């Protein structure tokens, strides 16, 4: 919309997806996963108690997208499709193992979110395809998630670095599953697979979190831009990753005690 308003984008046709009944705002839980429809706006997510309970990081990320005015119009699926490397919700969705549903008259396909972006502002969508929903699997073990964003101010800020972390704990307290998404440090939102590998099977001790933070750097290829230097971004990735994992672990333990 900003692009159209400024005249940078001059589309021949604009289709208002809000007029399509099948895509109406909906957050549904079925068969071990949540499905969030294309027209679900950030405010809908913020006000959903199930999302707050299962995926607190997603609420944390949704709450810092623009202003209330923006969040009343901006959809989760739109935040994904826009393919901005600095978007807030994608690192969390990658961490949570989300997938997206792409629909066209040829049929429907589901692809893992971390395979959706192909390059800077490039997506795997084919001509004639549109995203109709995002799916997030429910964790099967005690789980916690967290989102951390580094910026110069708290509101209406585009991240210098942002991190989504999701952790599942085994009964013995070791990390059974880990998801980590990084924003603003590559051409698109990336998964920190190296860090995830270090975490899985380990106990969440400070040395392990620090090692995971360092390992996350292998996924980061930051650039200098008006918000930050690449060096500063590289310096901050380990810090934010280890803090986000620690916060997710704390939540996983708290959730475990409550149930």
């Amino acid at each position, binding site marked *: 919309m900003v692009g159209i308003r400024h005249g940078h984008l001059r589309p021949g046709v604009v289709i208002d997806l809000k007029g399509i009944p099948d895509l109406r705002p909906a957050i549904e839980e079925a068969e071990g996963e949540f499905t969030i429809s294309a027209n679900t706006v950030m405010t809908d997510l913020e006000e959903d108690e199930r999302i707050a309970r299962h995926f607190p990081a997603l609420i944390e990320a949704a709450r810092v997208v623009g202003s209330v005015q923006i969040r009343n*119009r901006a959809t989760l699926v739109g935040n994904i499709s826009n393919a901005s490397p600095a978007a807030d919700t994608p690192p969390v969705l990658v961490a949570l193992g989300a997938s997206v549903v792409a629909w066209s008259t040829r049929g429907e396909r589901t692809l893992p979110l971390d395979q959706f972006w192909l390059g800077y502002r490039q997506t795997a969508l084919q001509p004639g395809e549109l995203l109709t929903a995002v799916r997030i699997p429910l964790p099967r073990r005690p789980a916690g998630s967290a989102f951390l964003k580094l910026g110069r101010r708290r509101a209406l800020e585009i991240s210098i670095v942002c991190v989504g972390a999701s952790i599942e704990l085994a009964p013995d307290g070791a990390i059974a599953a880990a998801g980590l998404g990084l924003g603003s440090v590559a051409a698109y939102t990336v998964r920190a697979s190296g860090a995830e590998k270090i975490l899985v099977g380990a106990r969440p001790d400070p040395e392990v979190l620090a090692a995971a933070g360092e390992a996350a750097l292998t996924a980061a290829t930051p650039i200098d831009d008006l918000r930050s230097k690449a060096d500063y971004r590289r310096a901050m990735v380990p810090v934010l990753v280890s803090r986000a994992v620690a916060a997710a672990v704390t939540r996983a333990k708290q959730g475990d005690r409550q149930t």
Partner: protein
Amino acid sequence: MRLQINGRPREVEVAGHEFLLDVLRDGLGLTGSKECCVEGECGACTVLVAGRNVNSCLVLAAEVEGAEITTIEGLGRDGLHPLQAAFLDHAAAQCGFCIPGQLMSACALLDRNPRPTIEQVREAMAGNLCRCASYEQITHAVMDAAAGTAGG
């Protein structure tokens, strides 16, 4: 097409690329909503669509056909709205340019959350910039309106 504005149906001729703000200001003469940053930072163009505050400079008029739209002109038509009274009490308006947008965001907040904390007010109003920096006065005016102590 038909727009429902401040409780009244209005017939307007609208091109597909026209934004709600321009239709309000140029088509309907409702100039209370202001054009300023035109990219969703400042909030001067804020109106309510189905009770939720939005930046009317970033909403195509065609998107809101049939939805209930409230602009600053629709606020306090039977005397001052409590928020308007509170803004006066606190002298929250200096140059006044941002105030219609500030009032619409405050209105949307109090409709959803009648007794917000001061932190919630600050958070909810973060999308409305004031170049005169009347933030303290504005925040306290909203708190007073919520407490029902304005206009006394």
